[in-house]
């Protein structure tokens, strides 16, 4: 008898290896997309460079060197210097720190607001849902650039203002995604089972429902980072975002507003342009791959 159960158990254990958790499966699907894997490495490399380069660079952020103004790339200044002699290689990666940091902060903040409000709206429905969704409609109606201009002209244009503005303007879309998911999930029997076990509303919402929506949130956040980098750079380019002397990828390409710079000083704007392009494209590819990986219908 015991040998038989042993055999059965062994068989079960063997079968167990084929049983994978949801995230293991997502990871497997994701790895199949080679382009996405390469993109992940590129993004990681950029992030690492942004962390390390400013720490080891011999030049500082604002150290000017009027003797070496507007130098083309050379051995001592890998990406040349700008018109007051600051090392552009260092500034590129400090700019990356700020651009990526802002993008991360905005997405985090917008996800927190969006997830909380979306969950409440989806879970309680009725009047709570009505109020939250109408507020989100109002936010979606705001003309984005005009609001930014107004806010920047009222408050100063520091990183904090920018982060708050962007996240407050963009939470409705994630709130809608979360709400739609919660609406369908809350009708499932395990939620009733939860209620029958005496688990509180708060726990039911944020411990039981939310993890089921997590996959969608992660996809949204990845794509959101790309979108936010673009928004931040365009605002900074227009002078509405972060201002000199703090560099960001957006205001590093600002000199390209002058034709002379485009024609003669390519090293002023091209590196940050490429950095923006690479990061945004890679984030988008990763986001798309994640979306496919979490979609149960895509499983082959």
């Amino acid at each position, binding site marked *: 008898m015991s040998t038989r159960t042993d055999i059965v158990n062994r068989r079960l*254990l063997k079968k167990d290896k084929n049983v994978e958790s949801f995230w293991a499966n997502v990871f497997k699907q994701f790895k199949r997309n080679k382009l996405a894997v390469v993109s992940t490495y590129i993004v990681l490399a950029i992030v690492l460079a942004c962390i390390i380069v400013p720490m080891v660079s011999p030049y500082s952020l604002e150290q000017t060197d009027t003797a070496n103004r507007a130098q083309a790339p050379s051995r001592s200044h890998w990406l040349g210097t700008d018109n007051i002699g600051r090392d552009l290689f260092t500034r590129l990666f400090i700019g990356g720190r700020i651009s990526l940091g802002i993008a991360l902060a905005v997405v985090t903040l917008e996800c927190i607001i969006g997830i909380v409000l979306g969950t409440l709206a989806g879970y309680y429905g009725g009047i709570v849902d009505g109020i939250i969704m109408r507020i989100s409609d109002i936010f979606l109606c705001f003309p984005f650039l005009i609001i930014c201009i107004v806010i920047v002209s009222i408050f100063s244009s520091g990183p904090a203002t920018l982060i708050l503005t962007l996240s407050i303007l963009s939470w409705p879309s994630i709130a809608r995604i979360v709400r739609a998911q919660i609406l369908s999930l809350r009708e499932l029997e395990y939620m009733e089972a939860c209620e029958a076990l*005496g*688990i509180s509303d708060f726990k039911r919402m944020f411990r039981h429902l939310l993890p089921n929506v997590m996959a969608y949130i992660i996809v949204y956040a990845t794509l959101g980072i790309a979108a936010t980098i673009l928004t931040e750079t365009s605002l900074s380019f227009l002078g509405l975002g972060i201002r000199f002397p703090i560099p960001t990828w957006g205001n590093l390409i600002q000199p390209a507003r002058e034709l002379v710079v485009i024609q003669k000083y390519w090293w002023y704007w091209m590196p940050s342009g490429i950095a923006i392009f690479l990061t945004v494209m890679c984030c988008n590819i990763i986001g798309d791959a994640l979306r496919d990986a979490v979609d149960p219908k895509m499983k082959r």
Partner: protein
Amino acid sequence: MRKQPILQVKNLKTYFHTDSGTVKAADDVSFDVYPEETLGIVGESGCGKSITCMSIMQLVETPPGKYEGGEILFDGIDIMKASKRQIMDIRGNQISMIFQEPMTSLNPVFRVADQIAEAIMVHQNVNKKDAEEQAVDMLRKVGIPNPERVARDFPFALSGGMRQRVMIAMALACKPKILIADEPTTALDVTIQAQVLQLMNDLKDDYQTSVIFITHDLGVIAEMSDRVMVMYAGKIVELADVEELFTTPKHPYTIGLMKSKPDMSTTGDRLTVIQGNVPNLNRLPSGCAFHPRCPYVMDICKEETPDLRDISATRKAACWKVFQEKEVSYE
């Protein structure tokens, strides 16, 4: 030898107000549950079995549902008037419930042990590690082979029968006084059904729990219950000890149910059926709701609704014909 009832339901009225009228899903339902007994509730689909039990747990969604009246006395508390805090404390701890559909009753993103442990931690003051140990113990008690491993599995790795065992483990984890089982075996195949029923019977004795067992399967009722309550169109039509009910059904509806039970000894014939359908609950016929389908219908049945009366020490029925026969036998 009847003990004090552990749960008393008195004149429970749970209605649904819909656009097409008021649906009286549980209409003036009264019954008692005694310690350590199994009370079976039978009836066709849509006769108010589940709503009655969900009312006990206060799980009916309001709106559209509404508790129009009645008392549910449990442990000195009227659940109908209890605060949310009190109800949360009762749910899962004193009264717990097993649902019909084991495939969707577990949260897909948590491991089995986490879910059982959570049920324990909500009601008992234990840390996560102890709760998980208790969870593994519970899995062993419900007859899951290799419980340490299954505890770490996600629900989708388990079969329907295993999941229902997990649900039972979860429901019994806090040693509730009453377990409500809402058609727990309907979604399982027959061999697994028998195992799960056996398991419930064993555990019920171990834990000294009263069970309210909802089903439309008369065979299951006969096997599981001590007393049976037959419901029709939101009302109790007959309540009796299981043997009495099966040997001498009184209410014409019960008689009809017994007759329409498939029987191994008769072959080749069509099954006997009760003519007609369950009436739409928002357009009930006048008088006794069963009268359009009743073979013994009398004039009074069409005009007056019979109330649930004692017809002996152990049984109750709501039928004019039964009342008349009883009077005759007294004279």
